[in-house]
């Protein structure tokens, strides 16, 4: 019986089962606090802790799920393509603003976190904070950060950006639909896009595009900026 709880079969069933229930719960309640990733993590962490399963054992048993993360990052290439064919006009404005936003986002988070004395691994985990979780976690792992921290920070940043973003845009007198959509998608990924959709269909569509652009640019810029910052 005890052996069964430690089996790969049980841990995979438990993980996927928890995820399915968490998604169902979120769809029923639509409460941001019940974000499926947060509830899943809470349930699984409490579950394996009380069963006395050490993290390396859990990680080993669920390696296949982790492998599929890589496949789903590749699948984002399809999403990017589907969004790009809807992209018309103002391409230079989109690319330039998101590229500068990506660089400012990475550099500012490094400088602030370093100034506050954060551990280098923590700093690496924060660099991809503005982008969609799958890419963020991949970038973080690659640069020696803590993927778990990145996953949580990305969600919290998304909620924060979606709430505070529109206020900042108002203070700065940003009226353009393109600018609002890009800013929310670039800073707060899917949560920002959900907010942008409330502002309007154009803002929503552009925001979705910004998630992809920001993800790709940040994935490329993080290693570049890390090399540059090393020599500063």
């Amino acid at each position, binding site marked *: 019986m005890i052996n069964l709880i430690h089996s790969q079969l049980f841990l995979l069933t438990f993980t996927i089962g928890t995820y399915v229930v968490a998604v169902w719960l979120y769809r029923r309640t639509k409460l941001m606090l019940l974000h499926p990733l947060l509830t899943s993590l809470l349930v699984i*962490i409490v579950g394996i802790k009380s069963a006395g399963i050490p993290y390396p054992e859990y990680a080993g048993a669920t390696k296949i799920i982790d492998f599929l993360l890589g496949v*789903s990052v590749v*699948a984002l*290439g399809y999403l990017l393509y*589907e969004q790009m064919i809807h992209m018309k006009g103002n391409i230079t404005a989109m690319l330039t603003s998101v590229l500068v936003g990506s660089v400012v986002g990475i550099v500012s988070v490094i400088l602030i976190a370093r100034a506050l004395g954060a551990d280098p691994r923590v700093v690496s985990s924060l660099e991809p904070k503005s982008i969609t979780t799958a890419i963020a976690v991949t970038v973080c792992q690659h640069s020696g950060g803590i993927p778990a921290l990145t996953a949580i920070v990305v969600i919290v940043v998304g909620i924060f950006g979606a709430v505070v973003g529109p206020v900042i845009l108002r203070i700065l007198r940003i009226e353009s639909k393109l600018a609002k959509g890009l800013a929310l998608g670039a800073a707060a990924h899917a949560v920002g896009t959900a907010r942008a959709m409330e502002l309007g269909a154009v803002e929503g569509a552009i925001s979705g595009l910004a998630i992809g652009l920001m993800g790709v640019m940040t994935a490329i810029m993080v290693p570049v900026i890390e090399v540059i910052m090393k020599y500063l």
Partner: protein
Amino acid sequence: MAGIFILLFYYFLGTLLSYLTGNFIPGSIFGMLLLFLSLVFHIIKSEQVRSAATFFLNHMMLFFIPLGVGLIASYTLISKYLTAISIASAGSTVLVVAVVGVIAQKMESKHHD
């Protein structure tokens, strides 16, 4: 099944490219870019990957649960720097919104003049 094969194949190609370029950028990111370019240049048709890609995209959240559970392993380190993490993330997010918003608006209006 062909769709799953294409995704795995691009993942492999991306990983190979990453290896050949000194692991500077993760393989799955290269795979994503190669898949995107192949779709743009009609090397593969979007219908060929649509159902497989949609499946993975719809359930993406599941795929980072195992990494997220790693929170238990690094809990002490994270709680030690919680203030730095919060201030840096919040401050930087405000900057991203402002920079992207201002630049996009400036460049767009120039475009219209």
